[in-house]
C-alpha cells in the first residue's frame, strides 16, 4: 500500500502512513526541530548569564524566572525529544526492520501512533511558553513541592500542567514505541538471523526497549500522581505544613517529595542509557565499517550492552546522595554506579583496540560519519571519566548540582549523543534521500563542532570545582566568590555561540545534499548490515553482522544476507 501511495505523497498519506522509513524520517525531523529550539534556548541562557540586561529577540529582557524557564525547557527538549526520539525511534524506525531482514515493523500502526503522540507531546510542551506565567521553572527534574504547588513560582501553574501532560503523552508514545521495537526484534527476524547474528545496533535497541518499558512506565505513574496532587488534593509528594509566600497551603496529608525523587530518577537514570546505548551500538558498527574489520569480540560487546542495561536500572540513587536519602543507601548506589563503569570501560577499550588493529586497513581519508564516531568516542571518554568521581558520595556531596555535573552530562550525554546522531545521519542519509551528504561541509562541521564543544564544556568543570551551582540566573549576590567566575562564564558563552553557529553548516548541508547531493550507489559505505541490501526481505542469513576481511584477493566485505556461493 505504502509504495503506491508514496508516489502521490498527499498530505493525507503523510499523516496516515505506517511506512517505517517515513516514520523514521518524521521522527528525525521532529528531533531536528527540537534540537534547533533547544539550542536557541541554551544560547539565550548563556547570553543572559553574562549580560542580564540585554534584550533578546522574541523574549526581551529575561527575568530570573525566565532564565529558569529556559533551563527547564532546554533540558526537557534535549533529553526527551532529541536524545530519546532521535537515536531510539528515529534511527530504529529507519533501519531496524531492514537490519533484521524484515519487510516492516511488527506493529506498524502502533509505530505510527507513537510518532503522532510524540508530535502532540512536543506541541503541548511548546504551548507552555504561551500560557500565563510562562513555562515551568523547576528544571527538567521538577522536584515537588516546587512543581506541586502552583503558587510556588511563575510558570508553576498552567505551564507546569502542560509540562506534565506533555511528558505523560511522551511516556505513552515511548512505551508504544518500545513495545513495537521489542515485538519486531523478537518476532520479525528473518531466517538465520539468530540473536548472536544481530547487528550491535539491534542489540542496543533491544536493551533500550526493555529499559523504556521500565523507565517510562514509572515516569508515567509519577506524572499522573503529581497531577493528582496538584488538582485532586492528594498528598503523594506534598508534606503537611507547607507555607508558600507567607500563606499556609491547603492542608496536605503526609506526602514526601522523596518519593518523587525516587520515581523520577528510577526513570531518569535508565533514560541516560536509553539515549546512549543506540549510540554505542552505532559506534561499534561504524568502527567496523570504516576500519574494514569485524567488531572485536562481538559476544563481549553484546555482554557489555546487556550489563550496562542491567546495571542502568540499579544506579538511580546516585542522583540523590545529598537529597536526604539514607547514607547507607548512598553507599549501595555508589557501588552499583562504580560497577557500571566496568562494562562502559570495556566498550571503550574494545573500540580503541578496533582502531589500533584497523590502522592498516581503515578507509582513507576518514569520511564524515567516521569522524563523528571518533568525536563520540572522545566525548564518551571525557564525560565518562568524571563519572567515577561523581559516583563517590563523599566527592559528589561537594560537586552535586554544580557546573561540574553540567559538564559531565553535557559531554557524555549531550555531546556524545549528538555526535553519534550526526554520525548516523551522515551515514544513513542515502537511505533517506538516495544521496550522500557533502563531505567537505561535513568535515568542517565536525572540526568546528569538536573544538566548540570542548571549549564550551571543559571549562565548566572549573566553575563546578569553584562551587558554582547550576540554575543560577545571575552571578551576583552577597557572596563574593560567584562574580569572580564571570570571565570564565563569558568565555563559555562565546564558545557556545561558536558551537551553535557551526551547526548552521549541518543545516546547510542537509538542505543542499537532499536536493543536489551526489547520488549514492546501492551500498555506498560497502557495509555488511542488511539495511544496505537491495532487498533483504526474502533473505536467509548465514553469517554474523560484521564480515569485513582484510585480504587483497577477496572482496573486503560480505553483506550479511549474501548467498554462500557469492562469497566463494
Amino acid at each position, binding site marked *: 500500500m505504502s509504495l503506491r501511495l508514496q508516489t502521490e505523497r498527499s498530505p493525507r498519506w503523510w499523516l496516515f502512513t505506517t511506512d517505517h522509513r517515513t516514520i523514521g524520517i518524521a521522527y528525525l525531523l521532529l528531533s531536528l526541530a527540537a534540537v534547533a529550539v533547544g539550542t536557541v534556548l541554551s544560547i539565550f541562557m548563556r547570553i543572559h548569564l553574562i549580560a542580564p540586561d540585554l534584550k533578546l529577540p522574541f523574549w526581551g529582557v529575561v527575568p530570573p*524566572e525566565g532564565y*529558569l524557564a529556559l533551563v527547564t525547557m532546554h533540558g526537557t527538549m534535549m533529553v526527551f525529544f532529541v536524545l530519546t526520539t532521535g537515536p531510539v525511534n528515529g534511527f530504529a524506525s529507519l533501519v531496524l526492520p531492514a537490519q533484521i531482514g524484515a519487510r516492516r515493523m511488527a506493529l506498524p500502526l502502533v509505530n505510527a501512533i507513537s510518532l503522532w503522540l510524540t508530535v502532540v507531546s512536543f506541541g503541548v510542551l511548546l504551548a507552555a511558553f504561551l500560557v500565563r506565567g510562562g513555562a515551568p521553572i*523547576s528544571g527538567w527534574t521538577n*522536584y*515537588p*513541592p*516546587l512543581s506541586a*504547588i502552583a503558587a510556588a*513560582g511563575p510558570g508553576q501553574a498552567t505551564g507546569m500542567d502542560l509540562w506534565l501532560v506533555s511528558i505523560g503523552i511522551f511516556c505513552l508514545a515511548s512505551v508504544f514505541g518500545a513495545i513495537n521495537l521489542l515485538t519486531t526484534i523478537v518476532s520479525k527476524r528473518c531466517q538465520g538471523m539468530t540473536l548472536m547474528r544481530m547487528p550491535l545496533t539491534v542489540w542496543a535497541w533491544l536493551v533500550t526497549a526493555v529499559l523504556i518499558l521500565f523507565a517510562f512506565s514509572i515516569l508515567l505513574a509519577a506524572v499522573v500522581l503529581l497531577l493528582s496532587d496538584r488538582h485532586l488534593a492528594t498528598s503523594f509528594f506534598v508534606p*503537611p*505544613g*507547607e*507555607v*508558600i509566600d507567607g500563606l*499556609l497551603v491547603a492542608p496536605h496529608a503526609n506526602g*514526601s*517529595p*522523596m518519593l518523587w525523587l525516587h520515581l523520577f530518577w528510577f526513570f531518569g537514570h535508565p533514560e541516560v542509557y536509553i539515549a546512549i546505548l543506540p549510540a554505542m551500538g552505532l559506534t561499534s558498527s561504524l568502527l567496523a565499517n570504516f576500519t574494514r574489520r569485524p567488531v*572485536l*569480540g562481538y559476544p*563481549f560487546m553484546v555482554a557489555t550492552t546487556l550489563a550496562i542495561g542491567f546495571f542502568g536500572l540499579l544506579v538511580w540513587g546516585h542522583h540523590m546522595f*545529598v537529597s*536526604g536519602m539514607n*547514607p547507607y543507601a548512598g553507599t549501595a548506589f555508589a557501588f552499583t554506579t*562504580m560497577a557500571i563503569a*566496568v562494562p562502559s*570501560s*570495556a566498550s571503550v*577499550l574494545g573500540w580503541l*583496540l578496533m*582502531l*589500533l588493529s584497523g*590502522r*592498516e*586497513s581503515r578507509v*582513507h581519508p576518514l569520511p564524515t560519519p567516521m569522524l563523528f564516531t*571518533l568525536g563520540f568516542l*572522545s566525548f564518551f*571518554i571525557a564525560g565518562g571519566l568524571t563519572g*567515577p*568521581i561523581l559516583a*563517590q*558520595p*563523599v*566527592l559528589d*556531596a561537594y560537586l*552535586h548540582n554544580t557546573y561540574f555535573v553540567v559538564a559531565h552530562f553535557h559531554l557524555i550525554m549531550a555531546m556524545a549523543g549528538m555526535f553519534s546522531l550526526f554520525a548516523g545521519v551522515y551515514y544513513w542519509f542515502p537511505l533517506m534521500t538516495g544521496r550522500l551528504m557533502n563531505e567537505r561541509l561535513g568535515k568542517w562541521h565536525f572540526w568546528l563542532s569538536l573544538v566548540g564543544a570542548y571549549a564550551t564544556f571543559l571549562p565548566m568543570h*572549573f566553575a563546578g570545582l*569553584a*562551587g558554582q*551551582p*547550576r*540554575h543560577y540566573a545571575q552571578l551576583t*549576590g*552577597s*557572596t563574593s*566568590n*560567584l562574580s*569572580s567566575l564571570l570571565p570564565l562564564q563569558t568565555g563559555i558563552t562565546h564558545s557556545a555561540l561558536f558551537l551553535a553557529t557551526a551547526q548552521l553548516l549541518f543545516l546547510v548541508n542537509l538542505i543542499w545534499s537532499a536536493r543536489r547531493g551526489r547520488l549514492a550507489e546501492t551500498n555506498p559505505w560497502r557495509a555488511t548490515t542488511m539495511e544496505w541490501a537491495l532487498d533483504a526481505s526474502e533473505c536467509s542469513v548465514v553469517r554474523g553482522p560484521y564480515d569485513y576481511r*582484510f585480504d587483497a584477493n577477496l572482496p573486503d566485505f560480505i553483506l550479511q544476507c549474501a548467498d554462500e556461493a557469492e562469497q566463494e
Partner: protein
Amino acid sequence: MRADRVWWMPPNGALHGVAIDRLMWWNLVALSSLFVLAHIFLFAAMMRRKKSTSPDTSSSWKRELLPLAGLTLLYAWMAVSAQRLWATIRYQGAAPNALQVEVTGMQFQWYFRYPGNDAVLGATRPELINAPAGNPLGLDRTDPHSADDIISSVLLLPAGREVDLRIRSIDVIHGFFIPGMRLKQNAVPGMEMHIHFTPSVVGDYPILCSQVCGSGHARMQSHLRVVSESEYQAWLASHEPHLTSGATR
C-alpha cells in the same frame, strides 16, 4: 580569596575537608591522566601505518582484558577509599555535646536558630509563620523554650567546635551548600536532616542554595562566619532576646 584559587575549590575551612580535598585531588589526577592517555592512544591509532606485506597479526579482544582489570582495580580503589571517608563523615550522628543550630530554608532565604541558654529549641508551627510580624519561622511564643531562641540570618560558629545542624524547609526543597566547608545537604520540607561538621579555620564562607527552588534561587545566599570562641560568646550575649527575663528554666 586568593586569586589563584578563583577557578578551583575555595580554601577549605572544615576539619573533614582536608581528607576530601586530598581524595578529590587524587581522583582528578588519576582520571585526567586516563583522559590524556586515552587520547594519545586514539591519535596514535589514527596514525596510518604503511601497508605492510607481512600477514596481518589479527587482534583479539582478549588484549583488552589486562587494561580492563587495571581499570576495575582503580574503580574498586576509588569506591572503597571514598566509602571509608563517607562512612566516617555521615554514618554517625554528632557527638552529644555538639553545638545545636537549626537551619531553615524558605523562598529565598536561610534562617539560623540557636537554642539559647536552655539548649532546647522552642516549638514552631507553620500556621504561626508571619514574617512581616517578625516571626518568619512560626515560633510558638507560648512554649517556654522558645523565649531565649536566637534567630539570625547569618550562621556564626566558633572555630574548633563540632556543630550539629538540623536542616529543614518550610516550602520547597532547597540545597544547603557551604563550598568552603565541603558541605551540602538538601533541605526537604516535612523532613529534618542532620549534618555535623567542625569548622576549623576562622573566616567568612558563602552559603549557597544548590537546589533550584524558584525565581529567586540564585540570590538565596547567606554567610557562615567562623569566629573564635570568645567572639562567639560575645555575639550570643549581644543577640540574646530581651524578653528572656520572664522565661526561667
